[in-house]
């Protein structure tokens, strides 16, 4: 077990170092950082001074190590665009993205689970077939198009919901939350629905597939033989056995949702990290791009590692396989 934990952690660190290498390469080699940071009137002395301060005179491996050490301390440098500390910029924006992703995840479970059970139980019913088709449709429509159509319907035509922004937010310590005001909650509806749409269809399809498999097993037949109500068989016996993979997938998807939130944030002008990143891309603000890459990858890798480790605790067979095989590809 210990070997597995160490192996898994080493793997996570390795991935993060690779990501750091990519981020560093972007920072160092896409354009000259000195030219990008100073304006054209800067004197040669100023240039040399900045070059010295950024440590660009040192060897490339030494620079990489310094970059990793700084990143580990949360120091990602100064934004090219507005000369602010990048870490502060990202930390300011993080709550908005985090709340959006959490609400989207909760929504996907609240809507996806019942739909999945329904389509599995009434497999050949008309409504279930229609839902299956709608789920293919949901996967086919890109989230930004869905967001735009929702804005068009609920904001432009009906005027019920705001089309952009977070509404009123409340500061609690360093965290700005939209959960505590009416306008903040209303502003969450369209973006979270847009972000969760793909996730809803994912959960629904997964639950359906798992339920179909579980409903065929013997213990369901025995539960029925014991005279339990159909409701009890479905929800207390069958659904419970489907929850493990659903929770895993939901957990693993959180990293993806954070990344995909940048599309939703662009559509709704939601002031999160993703919007910051998209703006940074269009201004070639490289420290912000590099820092965002590092932060999102760190969340992604952390979630994956935690899920893997939890699985190993729950299911001893996985421990054996993972140590012996060392790869998921088989």
């Amino acid at each position: 077990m210990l070997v597995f934990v160490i192996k898994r952690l080493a793997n996570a660190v390795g991935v993060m170092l690779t990501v750091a290498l990519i981020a560093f390469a972007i920072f160092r080699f896409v354009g000259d950082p000195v030219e990008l940071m100073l304006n054209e009137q800067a004197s040669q002395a100023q240039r040399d001074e900045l070059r010295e301060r950024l440590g660009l005179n040192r060897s490339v491996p030494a620079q990489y190590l310094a970059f990793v050490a700084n990143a580990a301390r949360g120091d990602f440098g100064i934004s090219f665009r507005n000369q602010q500390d990048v870490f502060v910029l990202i930390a300011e924006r993080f709550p908005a993205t985090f709340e959006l992703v959490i609400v989207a995840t909760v929504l996907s479970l609240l809507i996806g689970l019942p739909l999945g059970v329904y389509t599995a139980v009434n497999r050949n019913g008309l409504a279930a077939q229609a839902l299956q088709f709608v789920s293919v449709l949901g996967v086919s429509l890109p989230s930004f198009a869905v967001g735009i159509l929702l804005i068009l319907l609920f904001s432009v035509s009906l005027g019920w919901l705001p089309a952009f922004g977070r509404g009123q937010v409340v500061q609690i310590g360093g965290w700005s939350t939209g959960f505590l005001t009416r306008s903040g909650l209303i502003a969450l509806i369209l973006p979270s629905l847009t972000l969760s749409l793909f996730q809803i269809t994912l959960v629904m399809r997964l639950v359906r597939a798992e339920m179909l498999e579980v409903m065929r097993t013997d213990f369901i037949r025995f539960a029925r033989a014991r005279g339990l109500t159909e409701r009890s068989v479905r929800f207390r016996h069958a659904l419970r056995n489907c929850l493990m993979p659903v929770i895993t997938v939901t957990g693993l998807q959180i990293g993806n949702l954070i990344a995909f939130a940048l599309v939703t944030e662009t559509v709704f002008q939601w002031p999160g990290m993703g919007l910051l990143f998209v703006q940074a891309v269009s201004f070639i603000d490289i420290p912000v791009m590099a820092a965002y890459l590092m932060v999102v990858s760190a969340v992604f890798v952390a979630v994956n590692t935690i899920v893997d480790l939890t699985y190993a605790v729950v299911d001893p067979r996985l421990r054996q396989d993972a140590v012996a095989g060392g790869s998921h590809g088989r």
Partner: protein
Amino acid sequence: MAAEARRSLGAVLRAIVASDLFWSFRRTPMAVFGAVLFVVLAGTAVLAPVLSPQNPYDLAQIFIDKAELPPIWAKDGEWPFLLGTDPQGRDVLSTILYGTRISLLIGLASVLCAMAIGVTIGLAAGYFGGWVDNVLMRLADTVLSIPTLLVAILVSAVFKGLLPPGLRDAFSGVILVGAISLTGWVQYARTVRASTMVERRKEYVLAAQIIGVASRRIMRRHILPNALTPVLVAATLNLGLAILSEATLSFLGVGMPVTKPSLGTLIRVGNQYLFSGSWWVVVFPAVQLGLIVLAVNLVGDWLRDALNPRLR
């Protein structure tokens, strides 16, 4: 060489038609619907120069006094602008047909590119094993441990940053294909690696090795044909994803430029007129995009189920 390739391709095609696949296809209405829809959409896109009322990128054919006309069925609609015009006076239907061409082209190219990279890496990893396998699969793990959308955005942003401004628009299609296939190859590599590891222990491969056939030839001519089915299924399903990725990147502004718009660019541009009442400029490209991906996904879903032995 070419004749051999043609013959093996012919054999694959014949095998496909002779199998239960065609029968299963005809009995799945959703698949037929998807296929027909795809043929119609792709066909009209290919024939865009013939079918569309104007070439939206030929300035001589655009009239600014025809700007922002609503679709033909609305009050101020005007022939031949079936779906209305945008604020620059371009016919929306024409921009959609031309945009679909670009979207489909980039989607197909990305899938083929990703498939070529993935199959090569998967064959090498599965056939040689050992450290080659280790290195290649660690690489695959790393690619998978960063969200693909993020990688694609970074790749296109970085390459655009590296190119001189004059060349950026000209190469945006190539950069997009690179960005999408750079993250898309892993799935192919994994499936091909898995089947290669099974195949390479079989007698026919051993026989080929004994008579001294070169490794490259064994991989390409002996193992590859036996590992191709799951690759084709994945490719079909990924075509939808690739088209979506392209549209997303273009929507975010790191994809196709306004001078050569794909459907994603059209939606990005149309989005700016969302509050001015010209809903048709953004809605129709979005619907077209959804329909194409839907068509591909319907065919892909059917193919996956039909070729899945567990569901037979």
